[in-house]
């Protein structure tokens, strides 16, 4: 590499920048996100790094080969309901598909909330007379005159995008294609999405939802990505612009202008990519639990056997209440838990944390903005884990008095000291995260005891050690740049592209011709993608073929890797069935060889390696015991309140060994090393936290 490589993660609050310089050093920059013009915030953060490097911003940009842009623009547009005015076209009799969704509700006794609205309102939904059957046969031909009439109405009513999702278009796309042609003819320039092209999968709601979301994002994402490219050019950038996606890879701008749905949740999807890279560098095995602790959410993802874990059950908003994305995405579970979560005492005398949050306004009491409820951040401040003058790199001065006041009030109700109460708040807050981690690992058949935790996000260091200890994970990797985990992930990401075909069959009456044709089509699509890619000649490419499979009559499928690229004979079919049995056994601990295996959606994924991951360091750091920078009184349940050594991270060298209790302060993150546990700084510059104490674990 000759120039810089820049990755940008624009979050709701902060824009994180990570710059890899030609010497292989990573630099971090942060600034507030500027939603009106994203480039401004990005430039602000870049200036921080440029200053750090001692060069001008234009020189940094001019010297950059690749910039990977992670955007929440699409997500924000959905959340704030500022997507395009979109029409939903579907088969006659099925206008309510987006309203009826797939069922499911939280809380059998909870009648306190309304039923959610559909992604596209009913007045913007239109039915076309046509019907394809389950075998792909035309049950009723498309009524073209009626379709033309509808499109004329759309034109007249000023629709900005069209989503077309017909029943069984995956078995026979003729009608969707015909409507596509009519749109081109009658509504030239109006972007549209056809369901069988975007997500050729079984289940009409999932396909319709994905199609509706994608179409509604097209106008604005086209504009946004083109403007971003222009802004960057104007600022001196002449390299390749890539955009990160929800499959944990990146793509060229044009590809995402055509399918903007893939930019949704791309930020969180990059954290497991980073986790995979760090676990590899530290040679800590192929299974990692990747946690990203933000201000208001806690995200968990997984790396299994060195691979990312994907799901088709990813939602915008809450599961069942929001809208399903429908495409395959990196599986990242998010729970509302963070520094703002409020601690309270319930009617049975039990201490609870959340689900109410003080958010950022008014925020925790210690923000001094009128917050009167004790929060997790207030507890961390009372315990001495946070330096009130150095919070968020000193950007926000905290009010310890206010924190003490609200915690003391709760302590009084609880009949305990303020310190004990604050420590209890931390323990209970940890529980929410332990449960979230438990769910994803259990669902995927990953044993936390055989995994390493990779922790990121600005608030990770406060509690990741006790969480890991409770889960039985011996080791946590906390990168120095932990606060920008997603941006770090982009530095190590591949260009990833997926192609899908639906071809339903089973292992008893296996459809050799149909499946092989589907696989050929998938590979042809991957190949054409590969060939269309600029500037990636000779780059290493990996292709994975998978099928979503299940036992007969099961409703949910499991991703199963194909043992061979083509299925030619009964032995191949048996090998595929066996691969499914093994997957099922791993996830559910049972296999049922007596049952037919049904195969539903076929999938190909190509990953083109643009950047080699960082090589592991070629030396072993020599252990040494650093000197503490200062001491401050901190409270730990095991030791009580005592002067605790505080280390400045920037002064530590690889090989540093720190025994708890101790605090390590990095410019963008703080690590609390609990009593009995220890931390070290690795040769690669990551903190390795040792979470198994010599004494038996306490609760």
């Amino acid at each position, binding site marked *: 590499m000759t120039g810089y490589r820049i990755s940008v993660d624009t979050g709701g609050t902060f824009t994180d920048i990570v710059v890899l310089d030609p010497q292989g050093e990573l630099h971090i920059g942060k600034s507030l996100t500027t939603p009106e013009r994203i480039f401004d915030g990005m430039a602000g953060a870049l200036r921080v790094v440029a200053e750090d490097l001692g060069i001008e911003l234009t020189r940094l940009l001019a010297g950059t080969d690749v910039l990977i842009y992670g955007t929440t623009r699409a997500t924000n547009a959905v959340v704030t309901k500022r997507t395009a005015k979109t029409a939903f076209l579907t088969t006659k009799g099925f206008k309510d598909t987006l309203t*009826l969704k797939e069922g499911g509700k939280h809380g*059998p006794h909870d*009648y306190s909330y309304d039923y959610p609205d559909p992604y596209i309102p009913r*007045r913007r939904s239109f039915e076309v007379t046509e019907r394809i059957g389950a075998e792909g046969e035309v049950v009723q031909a498309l009524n073209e005159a009626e379709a033309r009439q509808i499109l004329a109405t759309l034109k007249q009513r000023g629709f900005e995008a069209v989503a077309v999702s017909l029943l069984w278009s995956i078995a026979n796309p003729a009608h969707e294609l015909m409507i596509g042609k009519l749109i081109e003819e009658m509504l030239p320039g109006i972007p549209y999405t056809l369901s069988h092209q975007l997500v050729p999968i079984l289940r009409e709601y999932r396909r319709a939802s994905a199609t509706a979301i994608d179409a509604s994002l097209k106008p604005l994402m086209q504009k946004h990505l083109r403007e971003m490219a222009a802004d960057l050019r104007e600022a001196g950038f002449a390299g390749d612009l890539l955009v990160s996606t929800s499959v944990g890879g990146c793509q060229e701008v044009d590809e995402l202008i055509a399918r903007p749905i893939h930019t949704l949740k791309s930020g969180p999807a990059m954290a497991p990519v980073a986790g995979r890279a760090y676990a590899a560098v530290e040679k800590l095995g192929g299974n990692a639990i990747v946690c990203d602790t933000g201000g208001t959410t806690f995200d968990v993802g997984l790396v299994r056997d060195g691979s990312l874990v994907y799901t088709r059950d990813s939602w915008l908003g809450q599961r069942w209440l929001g809208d399903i994305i429908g495409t395959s995405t990196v599986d990242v579970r998010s729970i509302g838990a963070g520094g703002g979560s409020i601690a309270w005492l319930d009617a049975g005398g039990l201490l609870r944390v959340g689900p109410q949050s003080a958010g950022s306004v008014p925020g925790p009491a210690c923000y001094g903005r009128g917050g009167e409820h004790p929060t997790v951040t207030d507890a961390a401040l009372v315990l001495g884990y946070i330096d009130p003058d150095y919070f968020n790199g000193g950007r926000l001065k905290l009010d310890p008095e206010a924190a003490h006041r609200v915690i003391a009030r709760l302590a009084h109700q609880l009949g305990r000291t303020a310190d004990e109460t604050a420590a209890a708040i931390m323990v209970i807050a940890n529980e929410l995260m332990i449960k979230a981690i438990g769910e994803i690992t259990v669902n995927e058949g990953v044993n936390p005891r055989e995994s390493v935790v990779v922790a990121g996000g600005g608030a990770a260091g406060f509690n990741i050690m006790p969480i890991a200890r409770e889960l039985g994970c011996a080791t946590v990797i906390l990168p120095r740049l932990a606060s920008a985990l997603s941006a770090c992930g982009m530095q190590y990401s591949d260009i990833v592209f997926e192609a899908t075909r639906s071809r339903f069959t089973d292992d008893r009456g296996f459809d050799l011709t149909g499946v092989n044709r589907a696989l050929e089509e998938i590979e042809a699509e991957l190949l054409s993608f590969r060939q269309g890619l600029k500037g990636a000649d000779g780059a290493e490419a990996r292709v994975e073929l998978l099928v979503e499979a299940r036992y007969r009559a099961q409703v*949910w499928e499991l991703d199963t890797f194909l043992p061979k690229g083509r299925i030619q004979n009964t032995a191949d079919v048996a090998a595929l069935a066996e691969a499914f049995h093994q997957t099922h056994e791993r996830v559910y601990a049972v296999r049922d060889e007596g049952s037919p295996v049904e195969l539903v959606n076929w999938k190909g994924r190509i990953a083109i390696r643009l950047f080699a991951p960082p090589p592991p360091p070629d030396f072993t750091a020599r252990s040494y015991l650093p000197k503490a920078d200062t001491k401050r009184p901190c409270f730990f349940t095991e030791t009580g309140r005592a002067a605790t050594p505080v280390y400045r991270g920037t002064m530590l060298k690889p090989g540093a060994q720190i025994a708890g209790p101790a605090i390590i302060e990095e410019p963008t993150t703080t690590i609390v090393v609990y009593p009995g546990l220890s931390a070290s700084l690795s040769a690669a510059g990551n903190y390795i936290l040792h979470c198994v104490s010599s004494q038996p674990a306490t609760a």
Partner: protein
Amino acid sequence: MTDQTSLDPVLLSVMANRLDGIVREMTNTLLRAARSAVISSARDFSCCLVTGEDELLAPAEGLPVHIFGCHIQTANMRRYHAGDIRRGDAYLDNDPYGGNTHPADHTFMVPVFYEGEHLFTSVAKCHMADIGNSIPSSYFVLARDVYHEGALVFPGVRIQRDFRNIEDIVRMCRARIRVPDQWYGDYLAGLGSARVAERRLEEFCAKYGVPTVKRFMRDWFDYSERRMIDNIRRMPKARLVNKGKSDPLEGILPGGLELTVKIEIDPDEAMIHVDLSDNPPCVDVGLNTSLGAATSAVVGAIFNALDKDLPRNAGSFRRLRFTYAEESVVAAPKFPHSCSVATTNVSERLVNITQSAFAQLGDGHGLSEGGTGLGAGMAVISGKDHRRADAPFVNRMMLSTNGGPSSPVADGWVNYAIPVIAGLMYRDSVEVDELKHPIRVNALELVQDSAGAGRHRGAPAQQIELTPTGNPVTAVISCDGQHAPPRGVVGGLAGTPGATWLVGDNGDAARLPNVVQITLQKGQTLRGRDSSGGGYGDPLTRDTARVLHDVLEGWESRDKARAIYGVIFTGGIEDETLAVDASATREERAKLMAARGS
């Protein structure tokens, strides 16, 4: 309240969280590994942990109609096998006379031992698609008695020893249950779920030690009871009596059944006393409700009327007291009466009667009635698939559902199913059902103007039309929701009842009875409409923004908005200019209000 031996409250909270994690893991295991749609889609199952002394400790977020009775089943297991229960055992129970809900619910129980002591029993209860009944459905409304019903019944029978199947039992089931592989798949899923809990509970005991675990159980029950006491103390002292009717059964119960629930709320004693004794005697059909099913229905409905995060376990249940009849269709079946449909028909009505009884306390309390009845969109269909060499199939669909009840603060939930499912189920994909069965769905939509109006509106009804694509298809429908519609409360209006029609190839529609078994020939269409939820509060006080929303979404018409809600609009839907005319609305509402008084 706190004594010396009490557990640290932080530890109490942590341990409760861990148990909750275990039942969630049980639920996920069962849900995703299960074979029949009735479990994996309709979510007709539940998981819970019971103490070694037969107290319900931790239920998962499962069907409310399973919440009560597992402790009776575990107690029977211990009684039947006294002195011969050990680690590695598993037991199957589906006896409606022994605490179970109804015979279709196969309950898998694994006694969990630690250091030789039986500390927990993990319980997974699953509704099986077939249980060897004399008809191809696990719901048999017309069963004259248990012999006519024909279910295989297992009263706390050991099915595993040393973690291995007792194959005799499996062979018995395989010999009598239709599509035995499907049953066996669900058997593996249910047992797998209970075994997962066993492993996790052993780890739990190893981590905390037996004395702490025991203290935890005691303290958790006490905590739950304190929450319940606090909640009941905040309620008014009252005696509530509420009645309701079930649908008639052609030729058998022409008037339906009149059901009564009496509730006495005593805030001073912090007790709720439920009297179910004033109900009709047993009937010679499958409508009799078991103690487990009827009590669950009522307990679930009581929890609908309480704080939403109250723990549901033996601790909070200490503040509930029940009185039953000697012999009754409600909670007191007499052998050999059949309880085949104990969890639906009468139980659905009991949920509605109970939750709406609380509305007698005044605005802010209770719920309206929710839509009832497993209609055409939830029928059990069977036949031979012409596309697969006439392979037989039998399955319950979950395509269209009833509308949910409204509450003091929210409108009804659209995907409600029935009161005992309470919206927890997944709905089938039309494409998946067409792929699996030789049927085609012609339409599936919400019915305009069907909802029970109110300050908060019940959820609208849905309507479905489906037709066979080849061979005839038999549909078994046992719907209790086509005569007595769900009622509104506190001035809210009633919802609309469901209906089933057979549409001939000439397009003529003939109304079918609410309980019916019908074979559809190619060219014929089954049309089913579900019922909608009742309203809560006076429709004239409904927030006009909500009425606007409903008209925009097509759930209510402009005519109904004017006539029932007194809301007048300007503009139109099509050009997106629809808006509430505030002053005209004020006048219209005043006029309607005045007309009422006269």
